[in-house]
C-alpha cells in the first residue's frame, strides 16, 4: 500500500489568489526517506501539510483532485487517527514544545497521557524512546530551557513516542548549526532503519544527497521531477527551475562545461571523490584504451 497517492491535486489557500499546489500527480511509497526540495513558495510546506491533512482541514482553501493517504481518501480519515499515524514536526523548534511541562520526560509523555495510556505504560514507553534517541542526558531538564537542536530532538521523541509510522518534517535543520544538523539527520536515518517512513523538506542539499532515498522537486507549486536522489539531482530539469543541488553536482557540471566531464555525475562527496580518484589513477590507461 502506498503512503500517499495524489492525483491531479491543486490547492489554493483561502485569502490568496495563486494556487500553492498545481496539478500534482505523485505516489509515495512506505519505508523510504523522501526529501522535498524547491525554491521558496514552491509548495513544499503545503505538500507536507497535505499529507497530514492540515491542508485543507486546518488551513482552509480549495482542494481539487484526489488525495489518498495509506489507501484511504484524505477526507475519510478520522483526523485524530490521521494525526497519530502521521507525525508532524515543524521547522521552528520553539513551537514544538508544549510549554506546560517541567521536564523533558514529562514533555515526551504528554501525547501518551492524552491518549489515556496508563501511567506505568507511559513511563516504559518514554524510557524506551529516550533510549532509542539517546536523550538520557536531557530527561531531567526543563524543555523550555533547551537549545534549538535539543528541542528539535525532543520534538522527534514526542512524536515517535506516539508510535507514528510516518513522520513528516518541515525543515528540521534550518535553525541548527552543522553539527546539530548532522545529529538530527543521524536520528532521522536511524528512524528509517527502524521502518518508519519519512518525508522532509530540506534546503541543505548535501545532506539530502547523503540521506534521502527519493527526492521530490517542486517549483511554483508544480512537480518538477520525482525520483531516486541521484537521478533527480542530475536531471537538467532542476537547473532550469533554479533549484539548488549538492555542491559536488555543481562541480561536475562545471567540469563538463570546461570539457572534462566525469564518468558519471556525482551527488555526494564520497561519490565525487571516487570518480575523480579513479580518473587520477586510471586516467592515462583509460585514455590509451580509447
Amino acid at each position, binding site marked *: 500500500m502506498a503512503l500517499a497517492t495524489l492525483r491531479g491535486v491543486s490547492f489554493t489557500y483561502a485569502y490568496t489568489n495563486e494556487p500553492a499546489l498545481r496539478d500534482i500527480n505523485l505516489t509515495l511509497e512506505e519505508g523510504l526517506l523522501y526529501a522535498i526540495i524547491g525554491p521558496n513558495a514552491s509548495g513544499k510546506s503545503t505538500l507536507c501539510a497535505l499529507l497530514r491533512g492540515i491542508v485543507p482541514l486546518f488551513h482552509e482553501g480549495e482542494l481539487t483532485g484526489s488525495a489518498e493517504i495509506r489507501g484511504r481518501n484524505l477526507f475519510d480519515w478520522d483526523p485524530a487517527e490521521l494525526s497519530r499515524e502521521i507525525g508532524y514536526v515543524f521547522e521552528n523548534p520553539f513551537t514544538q514544545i508544549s510549554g506546560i511541562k517541567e521536564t523533558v520526560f514529562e514533555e515526551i509523555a504528554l501525547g501518551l497521557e492524552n491518549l489515556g495510556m496508563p501511567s506505568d505504560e507511559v513511563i516504559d514507553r518514554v*524510557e524506551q524512546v529516550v533510549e532509542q534517541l539517546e536523550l538520557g542526558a536531557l530527561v*531531567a531538564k526543563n524543555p523550555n530551557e533547551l537549545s534549538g537542536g535539543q528541542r528539535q530532538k525532543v520534538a522527534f521523541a514526542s*512524536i515517535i513516542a506516539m508510535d507514528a509510522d510516518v513522520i513528516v518534517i518541515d525543515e528540521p535543520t534550518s535553525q541548527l548549526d552543522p553539527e546539530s544538523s548532522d545529529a538530527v539527520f543521524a536520528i532521522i536515518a536511524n528512524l528509517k532503519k527502524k521502518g518508519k517512513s519519512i518525508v522532509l523538506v530540506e534546503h541543505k542539499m548535501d545532506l539530502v544527497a547523503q540521506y534521502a532515498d527519493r527526492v521530490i522537486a517542486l517549483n511554483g507549486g508544480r512537480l518538477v521531477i520525482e525520483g531516486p536522489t541521484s537521478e533527480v539531482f542530475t536531471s537538467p530539469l532542476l537547473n532550469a527551475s533554479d533549484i539548488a543541488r549538492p555542491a559536488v553536482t555543481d562541480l561536475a557540471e562545471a567540469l563538463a562545461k570546461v570539457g572534462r566531464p566525469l564518468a558519471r555525475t556525482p551527488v555526494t562527496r564520497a561519490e565525487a571523490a571516487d570518480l575523480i580518484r579513479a580518473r587520477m589513477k586510471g586516467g592515462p590507461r583509460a585514455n590509451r584504451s580509447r
Partner: protein
Amino acid sequence: MSSESGNSVAFGNRFRTHVDRGNPIRNMDPIVVFIVLVAIAIAPIAFPGFVAAAIVCLVYPVIALFAGVAREFLPTYLRLFLVVGLVLFVLRAAFIEGKDPLFRLGNIAPTWAGMEEGARFALLVMAISGAVTLFFNVATVRYLMLALELRGVTPRATYVILASFQSIIDLGRHARTVLEAQQSRGIETQGNIIVRARAFFPILAPVFLAAINQTEERAISLDARAFNSNVSHTHLVTLRPARPREIVFAVVVVAAVLVAFIGSALGWL
C-alpha cells in the same frame, strides 16, 4: 550511552509513585489547602475589632514555618505589610474624621477611633493577602492544575493557565531580544519621555506578532500529541489522594468559620 539510559530509567521511576514534596502540609491536596486558607482568611470579617485579623495574620507565619516555606513566605509577607498594610493604616488613621483628635497637622487630625478602624482594615486586607501569598508558596500552580483536572476541569482550561506562565517567560525573553534589535536599527530607548514613548510600540508589536504567528504551529503540534483526543487523559504525575484526616480538618475549619459568621449575624459577637 548505557549510563545515560540508566539515568533515564532512574528518572522515570520517580513517576511510579505519588509526588512527595517532603512535607506533610505541602503534600496536602492543593484544593483542600485552598479551602482551608479561604476560610481562615475571611474569618476575621465576622469579628469586630482588629484582634481576630491580627491573630490570623500571625497564624500564617506559623503555617509557613511548618510547611517549610517560611524562607519564601516571610520576606514577601513583611514587604506586603510595609508597602500595603502600613499605607492603608496610615491613610485611614490620618483621614477618618472624629472627635478628640490625638494631634492636628493642617487638615490631618487622627483620632483613636480612626487608628482602630485603620488597624482593623489594614489587618483584614493583610489576612486575605497573606492567604493568597501563602497559598502560592505552599501549593504549586502545576499541582493545583493537576488536582483540578482530576476533578473534571478540562485540560484546555489548565493549558491556558500553565501556558500563560511559560508565555510570560518566553515573551519576556523575546522582548529583550527585540529591544536590542530595535536599538540596532536606531530606535532610542533613553532620553525624554516622547523619545521613550516612541520606543514602546516597536518593542511590543514584534513580540506579539511573533507569538501570534506561532499559534498555528502550536495548535497543530499539540493536536499531533492527541491534545484534542476525546478519551479521558491519564496523568504521569500523580498526587497523593487527600487523607481522611485532612478532609476532616478542612470540614472543621470551614464549619467553625461558618459558625462565626452566623454568630456575627445573630449578634452573639
